[in-house]
Every structure is written in structure tokens, then in C-alpha cells.
């Protein structure tokens, strides 16, 4: 009996030991309808998918798919003459920051952008945690792109919610998130955020330099934050923070690469089915929004709905905008970019007229612009050591848009004014115009209601209520 009892005890003990050693494994259950983080980052494909996921969030309507390009932010920039109560974008057009409309847009942008940032941060932390899984090439590209994404998103949040740099470099701006956890991060000052962004970009640049497939001509890299997009973003950030010399240098690298040639007049004027309305090859970075048609075609830029709710401006306004009285009629952006639908003029940048069965890779619609090469010219023109060089640079763009040259003798103020006009024409319904207005703290943007006077405070979107509530450090 005693022996048997011992035997049984032994069996139980052995069984327990085996069982317990297998326990940890047994309890690691991975979901099937979703993928656990540990599981996703087990392969290079998983890393790629995590980065792709961030782009897909950027392509959502809450961010660049709509709000931060053609929608909300363009309404702020007075691109649409909407009016009447209950009409979309009316409060945005009136820069009515306390309105529910603006608050809802702000909060949607805020939370989606930070959600995308969390996605980028997960990639960054896993790149180091699982360095051994990745080839040097992949490691550089994944980490570089993720850092660039983090910088890109934070920079736009800073430009939306942060104080104007010139007046508020040392004021509280936005939290710069580098980790993924539940703890709220205290907001950094504008200058600090700029520092963080530049640091991330520098790191990204170093990683991607020479390794980015764009160097070997892979233009499909336009839809990712490629090496040149990083340089272009640097130029943008540096200009925003007043570092003109470095901004000039960074923009120059993008232009000098020669990878983003200007569009030809044929491409912009050909039949509706093939027309390149977005000047795709000029995009240093653009975002692919595959299902853009579902909201753009019936909702935007078409003649449905009442006159006051259409997302367009009057013909007079367009004439003013493109200075048709002084040679602007030949401007590609006017001649081919303002088209009529049912007799009403609309900006046709986002019209989805490609044939239904066109291969995805051949389509020239379904994109929204991120960084245009023309912006690099504008940056250089603004920061050029001499006015003359600035005018020459601006004339390069004008020439490629079907406009005549400016005189090389105009003064700096006129040059700045021409640059502003270029922004208004070039970035119509793209969002960058509002950032320009903000950077320059333009008191009366074009077409704004006489009763509104913009100032540094009014160029700042409201921080969402939920953030103020659950981030006690705000």
C-alpha cells in the first residue's frame, strides 16, 4: 500500500510538472478573427501590414481621405461658398470654433491621428524588439517609415491644434506620443514638438538614405513616406519653425532629385477618362484612397443639392482666384481644373472619371495629395537668398502651369504676395492653404466673410473635450 501510494504520488507529481511546464504554452491563445500583436510582428509581412494599416487610417475620411484635404480644412480655408443653417461646413467656413461641427471634426481628427500614431509607435517598438527577424534593408525601411509617419501626423496635429509658431513657440501645444500605453502624455510646447519631429525625421532620413527603393526608380513609393517625402517634410517643418536656410536646403534635395517632373499640358487636358487632374507624378507623397468615390462623387463637387450647399464657389470667385483678367485663363488649374457639372463650375480635382475597370495601378484618380513638388519650389522661393532666385523658382512652377513669367524685378513683398496667390491656386481643396494662412497669420484670407478677422488664437482648433478631461496634464 505504501509503495503504491508513493507511486501514485510520484505519478501525480510528474503529471503536474509536465502539465505546469506546458501551461504557459496552453494559455497562449491567439485570436482568429483578429491578430495579436505578438503574432503579427513575427514576420516581415506582419511589419509591412502594420505600416500599411497606418496608411489606411490616414486614408480614412477622418484624416486625409476627407477632413484634412478636401473637406473640413478646405472649408476653413474658404474654398467653398456654403451658407444656410444646417448646411455642411457652414460653421467651419465661419471659423466658428465653438460650434459642434468644428468640435466634432476636431475631435475626429485628433483621435484618429493619435490612433494612427499608436500604430506607428507599435511598429517602432517592435522593430527594436524583433530586430533579428528583419533584414537590414527591411529594418531600415520599416523603422524609417514608421518614424516618418509619426512625425508627419504629429506635425499636422501641431499645425491644426498648436499655437502659431511665431507667437507661441514656448506655449503648450500637443502631446508627442512615442509609446503605446494608457498613460496620458503631457503636452509639449510648439518648439519641443518641432524638435521631436525633426529628430524623428533625421533618424528616418539616415535609415532610408540609399536604401529606399525610390532611388532605383520605384515610383510606387510615392504613396509611402519615401526618402524624398521625409526631406520634403523636413523642409515644411523647418520653414514652419522659421529655419529658412535648412528648409531651403531640404527642399532643394527633393527638387534636384528630378524624380518628380512637372506634368505635361497633354496629361492635364486629355479626355475625361484619362485626364490627370491631380498631377500625380508631381506628388512627392500622396495618399491612395480607394473608396473615395463613395463620398466624393455624389456628395462633393457635383450639382446635387441646393445652391448654398454645393462645395464650390461662384464663377466670379474662380475668376478672381485665378486672375483671369490678367492672363490667368491659360492656367491649367483653371482651364482644366475647374469644370462644369450641369452648367455649374466645380473644382474637379477629385472627380472620379476613370473607367470602372481600369487597373488600380494605372488609375490617376483615387488619390489625395500629401506633398507636392511645387510646394518645394514655393519653399525655396520663399527662402531663397535673393529675390531674383525666388522669382525664378516661382516662374518655373508658373511656366509649368501655363502661366507667363513674373518680372524678375518685382520686390520681395510682391514675391511673397505671388507665393500666397500660388498657394491659393495650387492647393485648392488640398488643405495646405490653411496651414499657409496660419503660418503667416493672415487676418483676412481670400473670400472670408468681412465680419471675420483671423488672429493667432483663431487659427487654433479646439483641443477635444475628452482630451482635456482625461489628460490631467493639459
Amino acid at each position: 500500500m505504501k509503495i503504491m501510494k508513493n507511486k501514485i504520488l510520484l505519478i501525480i507529481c510528474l503529471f503536474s510538472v509536465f502539465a505546469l511546464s506546458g501551461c504557459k504554452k496552453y494559455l497562449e491563445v491567439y485570436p482568429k478573427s483578429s491578430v495579436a500583436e505578438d503574432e503579427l510582428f513575427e514576420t516581415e509581412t506582419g511589419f509591412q501590414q502594420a505600416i500599411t494599416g497606418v496608411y489606411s487610417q490616414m486614408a480614412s475620411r477622418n484624416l486625409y481621405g476627407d477632413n484634412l484635404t478636401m473637406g473640413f480644412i478646405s472649408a476653413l480655408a474658404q474654398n467653398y461658398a456654403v451658407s444656410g443653417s444646417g448646411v455642411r461646413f457652414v460653421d467651419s467656413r465661419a471659423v466658428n470654433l465653438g460650434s459642434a461641427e468644428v468640435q466634432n471634426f476636431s475631435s475626429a481628427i485628433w483621435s484618429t491621428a493619435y490612433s494612427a500614431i499608436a500604430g506607428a509607435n507599435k511598429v517602432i517598438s517592435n522593430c527594436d524588439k524583433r530586430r533579428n527577424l528583419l533584414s537590414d534593408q527591411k529594418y531600415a525601411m520599416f523603422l524609417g517609415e514608421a518614424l516618418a509617419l509619426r512625425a508627419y501626423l504629429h506635425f499636422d496635429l501641431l499645425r491644426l491644434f498648436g499655437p502659431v509658431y511665431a507667437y507661441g513657440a514656448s506655449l503648450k501645444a500637443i502631446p508627442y506620443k512615442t509609446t503605446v500605453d494608457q498613460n496620458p502624455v503631457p503636452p509639449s510646447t510648439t518648439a519641443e514638438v518641432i524638435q521631436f519631429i525633426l529628430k524623428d525625421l533625421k533618424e528616418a532620413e539616415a535609415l532610408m538614405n540609399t536604401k529606399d527603393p525610390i532611388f532605383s526608380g520605384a515610383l510606387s513609393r510615392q504613396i509611402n513616406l519615401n526618402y524624398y517625402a521625409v526631406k520634403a517634410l523636413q523642409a515644411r517643418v523647418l520653414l514652419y519653425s522659421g529655419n529658412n536656410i535648412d528648409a531651403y536646403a531640404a527642399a532643394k534635395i527633393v527638387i534636384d532629385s528630378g524624380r518628380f517632373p512637372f506634368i505635361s499640358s497633354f496629361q492635364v487636358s486629355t479626355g475625361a477618362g484619362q485626364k490627370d487632374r491631380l498631377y500625380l507624378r508631381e506628388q512627392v507623397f500622396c495618399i491612395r484612397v480607394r473608396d473615395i468615390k463613395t463620398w466624393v462623387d455624389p456628395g462633393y463637387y457635383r450639382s446635387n443639392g441646393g445652391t448654398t450647399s454645393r462645395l464650390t464657389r461662384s464663377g466670379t470667385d474662380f475668376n478672381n482666384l485665378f486672375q483671369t483678367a490678367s492672363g490667368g485663363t491659360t492656367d491649367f488649374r483653371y482651364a482644366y481644373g475647374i469644370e462644369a457639372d450641369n452648367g455649374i463650375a466645380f473644382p474637379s480635382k477629385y472627380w472620379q472619371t476613370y473607367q470602372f475597370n481600369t487597373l488600380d495601378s494605372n488609375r490617376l484618380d483615387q488619390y489625395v495629395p500629401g506633398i507636392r513638388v511645387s510646394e518645394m519650389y514655393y519653399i525655396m522661393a520663399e527662402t531663397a537668398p535673393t529675390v531674383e532666385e525666388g522669382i525664378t523658382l516661382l516662374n518655373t512652377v508658373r511656366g509649368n502651369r501655363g502661366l507667363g513669367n513674373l518680372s524678375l524685378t518685382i520686390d520681395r513683398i510682391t514675391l511673397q504676395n505671388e507665393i500666397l496667390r500660388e498657394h491659393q491656386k495650387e492647393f485648392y481643396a488640398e488643405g495646405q492653404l490653411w496651414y499657409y494662412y496660419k503660418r503667416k497669420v493672415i487676418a483676412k484670407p481670400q473670400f472670408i466673410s468681412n465680419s471675420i478677422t483671423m488672429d493667432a488664437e483663431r487659427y487654433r482648433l479646439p483641443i477635444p473635450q475628452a482630451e482635456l478631461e482625461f489628460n490631467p496634464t493639459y
Partner: protein
Amino acid sequence: MYQNLRKFGIPKRLYLKILLTMRLTIILLVACLMQVSASTLAQKITLSKSNVPLKSVFWDLKSQCGFNFFCTEDLLESAKPVTIHVNNMELEEVLKMILPEQRLSYRLRDKTVIVTEDRTVKQKTITGFVGDRKDGKPLPMVTVAIKGTKQAVETDRNGKFMMSIPEGAKALEFRFLGYKTIEIPINANTNYTVYMDEVETNLEETVITGIVERKAGNFTGATKMMTGAQLKQISSNNVFAAISAMDPSFRVIANNTLGGNINQLPDIQMRGTNSFPNITGELSTNPNLPLIILDGFEVNLQRIVDLDMNLIASVTLLKDASATAIYGSRGANGVMVVTTIVPKAGKLQVTFNDDFRFTTPDLSVYNLLNSVEKLDFEQRTAVYTGGSGQQQFKYDALYNERYKAMKSGVNTDWLKIPVQNGYSNRSSLYLSGGDESIRYGLQFSGDLQSGVMKGQNRKNYSGQFDLSYNIKKFQFRNSMRIFQNYANESPYGDFSKYVGLNPYWYPFDENGGTKKLLENFVVDNTRFQQLNPLYDASLNSINKTQYFGISNNLQIRYMPKRSFYIETSLSLNKQNGSSDQFYSAEDSRFLNITDLSQRGRYTARNENTLGYETLTTANLNLEFGPHQIFSTVGLNASSSSSNFYSLVAEGFPYDRLDNLLFAAQYQNNSKPTGDESTVRRIGLVYTGNYTYDNRFLADVSLRRDGSSQYGSDKKFGTFWSAGLGWNIHNESFFKQGNFVNRLKLRGGFGSTGSLNIPAYNAQSRYNFGVGTTYFGSLGATLLGLGNDMLSWQNVYKTNIGMDIVLLKQRIDLTFDFYRENTRNALTQISLAPSSGFSSFSENLGQIQNTGFEFSARYKIMQNAAQGLLWSVNVNGFTNKNILKELSNKLKASNDKLDAANSTQLKPNVLFTEGESLQTIYVVRSLGVDPATGAEVFLTKDGQKTFEWNVADKVPYGISQPKWNGNFGSNFMYKGLEVNLIFNYQYGGQLYNQTLIDRVESVDPRLNVDRRAYDLGWAKPGDVTQFTRIGLSKADTKLTSRFVQDDNNLTLSSASLGYNFYRAAFLKKIGLRSLLVTAITNDVFRSSSIAIERGTSNPFARTYSLSLRAGF
């Protein structure tokens, strides 16, 4: 037998001859024959022996005198030892000396002494009755034996026996499986009435924890055990209602919306709320649901709801740490252990049960206006008073139309239209039989239920096969169950839709058809229209669910010694369910859709679950001297996975074509949805019980649990408990006297956990989908923020209890006092959106429940011999729930909840330290100002104001009753049994939504409660509870005016049963037993608050008739 004969040298042929002469009927008597061959004759005997067997004396005699001795071995064995001292004596003299005192006689034939029983000894015939001590019912097949002999008879079906006993027999012994063997001295009586007690292994005396069984007398935990028969006496179909009638700490939380819907799962709770409520709607199951164990394995609530009550052998509630710590991470909300009946040994027994139920809707809480009153009310509330003359003309025309309808006698009772009297029937058949080594049981059950809403029904079919097999030290048991359920929801939809309809509307047209519109007047280009909800109900629609399941439990026990056994069990469960919803194209929900391919909708969902669980235990029971130790070590592993798919299709132009296949397309912009979850657990458990001299008791349990649901840093947790008890009645100073029969003091402390979170909540997960692609490549986006530290919420339980039995078991008392502290309470907290996520599961906060429960029973009359028992009983439960500690994050969520409710109409849950989770927060009201008719509020700091402000909310009541419980009486006489149970609830409050929805804040164009009839405040000076009732009226915001005491008394069960065990006709019609019971449930209800209950589905009153017949 033959071999025995061979010992004595009898040839085989002779043996056969003897056999032939034997009376075969008396098998027991002839065990062996004995023959002694002769060698010498007529010799004198000299013998001196003390205390030797008779047999050896015969051997000696034979060797001395040569006579053969012939007698049955039986007689030899039952003979008393012989002491004999003779010298040179004749054989016959010797025989006469020794045999009479053995009550044996002899005959001499040839050379043989034939020893037989002494027939001349006086035989006495006795008769008797054996019954069950508990209820006096007869016990058939009890073995009645004369002590020390093998002579025995069995009682008949009426518990009666008759036997002849030899003189000198000292005592009778009554033996029956499952009952304590008792010994009765034989006296001058010839009629004996004996009551037997069930042995301690019987249910009542055992605590079935689902893992081990412990003697109740030696267990220190707080438990409550009920037999299936007891529960069935209270309710024939609702096991949860029956349990709560027996144990008030087990509460079925009444759902005022869903009422008596038979297709909804009840919300049950044991000993209060240990978890934060499910505010975000993200937690998958009710976080306070007790763990349910069916035959040793965890099952979901649905299984018990659909389980045939006739199969339930017992239900045990485990409450405190000592009882629940063996379930570790799952035990915090209490455990409900259900066991089903196991086949009994014996010849084939057939039991047939039939439960017929009749349910009527309880509409007594509704008090609406009739046609005449309603029109009058509308007039007075200015429904027909318009601005311009043209407008007034339209109203007048409308009024005239309605008046015409009213005058023509239209007075539709809309409440009666969607409801019905439900007829339900459940039949079950149970067959069992077998012997000690093989037993089998077979069960079939069909349960057809109808609800109180028309078309609402539920059908359960189940079959079960049990087989148990004992071989040497092994015991195998297998139980397989197959179950199928079908449920249909009423096509009439929500009951509340009908409550507001005006009585002057009539649903049918002249031809008896159903109108599409109840009212359709065009007056001067203005259309007055009202949809008829009956029209939708008359269309072909589907709203059904079904599931099919199969479960198998296998148990193997190896018992090398009485004191030690190893048991391993494996349970497999597979279930497949589906639900279908179909709306016809004609349904009013598609009224504004013109596209034919979008009218008509079908939603189909398919769900699969698969689970297994194993438990292996080693049990050692040691007894030495006064020490008793029971120890169990167990290892448990389980996995359960489930998945579902769901899709919506639309475009069904013709509603008879109600198959998914006829859909025109998937719903616009929809795609199939679904989800999957797998949860795995492992646990190592030790539980031990030590008893010293049946006086001092101790229990310890320890469990190490791991679960895949928790964060990678907190996968394992340890849970434990310790309990002490003292059986004071076993102390020597208490033994004498019959005043105290039992006095047990027990207490325990320990920690348990609870586990109700979705499977993957702790993990950071990525989602893939069409929406996450980017230029043709698949993207993964973060679904939620994982928490590597996410863990069980720990509930520390303290319990002190006392069991007292007094006055020859006349008084039975149990008290329990407990405190349960939930630490690390799981909650969803809101995050700053800059974290990238909106919410996060975290262990925060502390909740305390303190409570007291008691139950008492007093036997007013008891006479087991006559089967008479009359007892009264009362039980009660009180619980105080307090939020002990709140993190700042949780406090912040209050503001968010309030901010989202700036014009709050209904109470919501707020988190305040020191308050209960059930607290009702309202703005205090001083009532309606007689001068202005406006409501006067009090601000938080006591200032009077007319302005309602959400920030002025204060705690004003608690929706949980302070005391709830039951009292009742039970009367048994012979076969008759009467049982009454009242349920009381006292000291809770309720926000009377009826007074707002149906009285004060009404739309007078729809029907209202009679209390609205006098219109509330009308002119300065009116003192009334209500502000002005009229057409243009602001919503009534959350006010203390409508917080009312919710005290109520319900006759939850009244039953009358008769057991025909005494009836002679049973035998004639071939029945073994027959029991008929009539039960009514919830027939009477009295409440301090007049509120509409069962707003979507009325509550039901149930009348049932049960029949149980054994063959």
C-alpha cells in the same frame, strides 16, 4: 456447494437426490449439507469443551459414537457456541443437553442423527411499517432481518412487512440503501412502525461542491443545498425562481422591460454586486453572474434554463470563500452546483412526468383610459385646439371622425391584442435499472412552452443516456446528452407599442381584414395617419433561434482502498445555434424605401461552440482515533471556443418566399460579420478538511489558476481559503438533554476571483479588413489597447455562520454574516484620445458588500407515523453595497456620464465613494409650486430653484431592496402536501417611469394612465403631484418626485400535491407510484409602487399541474 459436500464424502449422485428432496423455495436455508459416516455404535460419550462451535461438537460425537450427523450448514452457523462437560453419557442424553438451548430438535434414523430446527418452539408473527423519517412516506424494499440470523423479508410497496420470528430473537435490523441501518429490540409488540433516516452520504447531509463531496456536518463553508423535488414543488419550470424562494441571497433580478419573456435569460445574482456594471457594453456576459456547474463542469446559463427540471437531483449554492475557493478565479460571484439524477440499481423503473402549465399575462398594472374618457381627455388637453380658423376646422373634423367611432362603440382594448394565454406542456420519461455492477438510465423529454405574447414560444427536446459500470476497483460512468431548442419571438413586437394606442381606433376593417393604417383621414389636404402595428404582425415574418447541442461526460474512478481514490473526468460539449430574422417587404419599417430590391430583410446568424474540460483528482480520506482528514488534489484544464457569422440580405418582394435564397442582394454597404473567441484555463487545486472528534473542524483550499484571458504578465493567480468550525453540540457538556440537537459555529476567510471579460481583452490586437487595405496590400490596424497587467478581480470573502437545531429538531435555524471586498475591480476606463484609444480595461476600484442572511423553520406539528408534518419557515437577506475606493479615472467618468446627459430623463449609474452601485441619483424636488405650476428643485447645497441642473443630482434611493426573502408554510398529511411561499421585498426604491411616460410627460394624442386624467396642475392654488399635463410640455427631468418606495409582497408559489402511495387502485392499473401536484406562481402581488411592469413583454402568472407516475 458441491465442493463442500465433497469434503464430507457424499457421492455426487446422493447429492443430486438430496437436492431433489429439498424445498427449492427456501434457498437460503440450504447452504450446505453435512454427513458424518459411522464407524462405531452405541458408545458412551465423554466430552469436555468450552465455547466451541456446535459443528466441532458434532465431529467429536461422531468420532466417539459413529453416528452420522445430518443438518444444514445454516443451522450450524447460526448456532451458539457450546460448552459441554459430560462423562460417559448416552448420545441421546448429550443431544438433549445441547440441542434445546440451540432451539434445535433431532431424530435418530438408522445410524444418522437428523438435526432440524425445533418446530415446537413458539413462532411469533409480527407486522410493521417502514417509512421515511423526513416525510413519513413508505419505504418499499427495505430489508427487515432478524439480527444475528439470515432470516429476512422485504417491505412491500406500501412499506409494510410481515415475518415470523423465532422466540429468543432479540432485535430486528432494518437495512435500506441510502438509509441508516437501524436496530429495533423485539418486544411484546407485534406491530412495529419504524422511520428511517437517510444516511449521511445522502444529499441533505452532503455538500456537493462539484469537485469533491464533504460531510455537511464537518464542513465550514456557507452553502445551501436543495433537492430537485423540493424545487419542483415550488415551481414546475423555473428553477431560478424556485431557488430564490429557498435561498434569498440568490436573487433573480426582475427585468421591468423584458418581463415574462420566455426567450430571455434571467439576470441572477448571489450575495450582491461584486463588479462594476457594464457601462460600455463591452463585457460579454453579466459580470455578476454566478458560476454554474452542471455535473462537475461549467455550463452557461442557457443550459440550466432549458434543462428539464425533472432531471435535477440537487442544486447546491456555494457562497463563501471556504466553499468557493476551489473554483479560484471563477468563484467570486458564488457557485451554483447542479447535479442530475443517476440511475439506481434494481429492476427496470420507468418514471413518467408531465407538467402542464397555463400562463396568463399580468396586465393588472395597466390602467388606461377608454374611448369616452380618452376623447374627453384630448378635448381638455387642447389636442383639437388649433391656431387659425382653417386649422381649427381640420381639428374639428378629426375630432368628429373620432367621436363617430367612439359613438359607434369602438373601444379597443389594445393591451389584449398582442397577448395570449399560454399553454405549455412538458413530458419526460426516465427509465433506469441495472445491478450493482452495471446501471443504465435513459431519458427523453419534450417541453413545449408558449409565452404570454402571441406567437412567442420555446421548445426543448432532450435525450440522455447514462451508463455506469463497476468492475473491481474501477468505476466508469458516462453520461451523454443531446438537446435541441427552438424559440420563436412574437411577430407582434414590443408590447409597449400597443399601450399608447387610442381605444377609439380599431385594427380591423369591415371584412375582418387587418387595416394597414388605423387612422387615415385627409382633411383639407392634411393627412392624419396612424400605422397599425397589427398589420406588421399579420405579415409573414420570422424571428426565431434554435440550437442543437451534444455533451458527453465521462468519469473514471479508481479506488484501490476505501480511503483513497483517483478520479478523472472529461466533459465535451458541442453546440450549434442559429438565429433568423425576416421582415416582409410590406413591413412598416420599409415604408420610405421605394427600391424594391431593398424592401424585405433577412438576417441570418450561425454560431458554433466547442468546449472541453478535464478534472483529475486524487482523494485521500484518513481516519485514526478522533482524527479525520479528507484531502483532495486536483488538476483541471479546459478550453472553450466559439465563433459566429452573421449576414444581412435584402430585397424580398413576396413575403411567402421567406428563405434567404430569395434575397435580391446583400444589404447595401454591409458585409458578413462575425467573431471568434477561445478561452483556456488550467488550475491546480488542493482542498482539505480536518475534523477532530467531530467537534473541531477546519477546511483549507488552495488553487493556482491560469487563464488565457489575462495579460501576459498576470496569467496566473493564486486563490485560497481557510475555515474553522466548532460542533458545540458534540461537546460532552452539551450531549445530555434534548434541547439542543445541533449547534455549529463556523467561519471562513479567503480570496476568490471572477473572470467575466471577453477572451482577448488583455491583448493588443490588430484588425484586418476591406477598410484597412492600402493600394492593394493588406493593412493591420490596432483594435484595442491591450493590458499586460490585466488580471482577475479579487474578492476577499469573510463569512461567519451558525447552524442551530433545537427541541428535538423542531426548530431549525441558520445565520450567516458576510463581508465581501472586491479589490482590483475590473472596469473600462476612458482614456485621453491622445493615447490613440478611447477606453481601456483596467483593475481599479474597490467594492464592498456586507450582508446577513438567515433562515428559520419551525415544525408546528410532527407525527411521522401518520405522515403528518406542518411547518412554517421564514428566510431573509440583506446586503449593503458600497463603493469603497475609486480612482481618479473613474471619478472623471462620472462627469462624462453627466455631461452626456445634460437634460437627463432617466437615472443612470454614477460612481461615488461610499455610495452603492445601485444608488439612484436625482435632483431633489420640493414638488409642484401651487402658484406657478412649475417644479421647485433644490440645488446640491439646499437652495430652492426652478432651474434643473444635472450637477445638482444627489443620491436619493437605492434600487436594491434592503431586505428580501420569503416566508411560507408547508403542510403534509399522509399523501397530501400543501405549500405556500410568499416573497417579500422591503426598503428599496424605484424611479417610477410610469408616472412620467404615462402620466406627467405624456403626449395626450396617445393613450395615458388614468392618473393623468385630472391633468395635474391647472390653475394657481392647485396642490398636485404633477405639473401641468398637456400638449406642449417639456420632458420631466430626473426628479426626486418620482423616486418611490418599492415594497412588495408576492405569492410566489402556492402548491397542492397528492401522493397516491396509499391508494389501492395503483396496483390495479399497474403503477408503482403516482404523484399529482398543482402549483400557481405569482398569482397575487401587492406593491407600494404603481408602476407598469413588463413594458416590452408582460409578466406571466403561471398555473401548473404536474403528474409523476412510476411503473
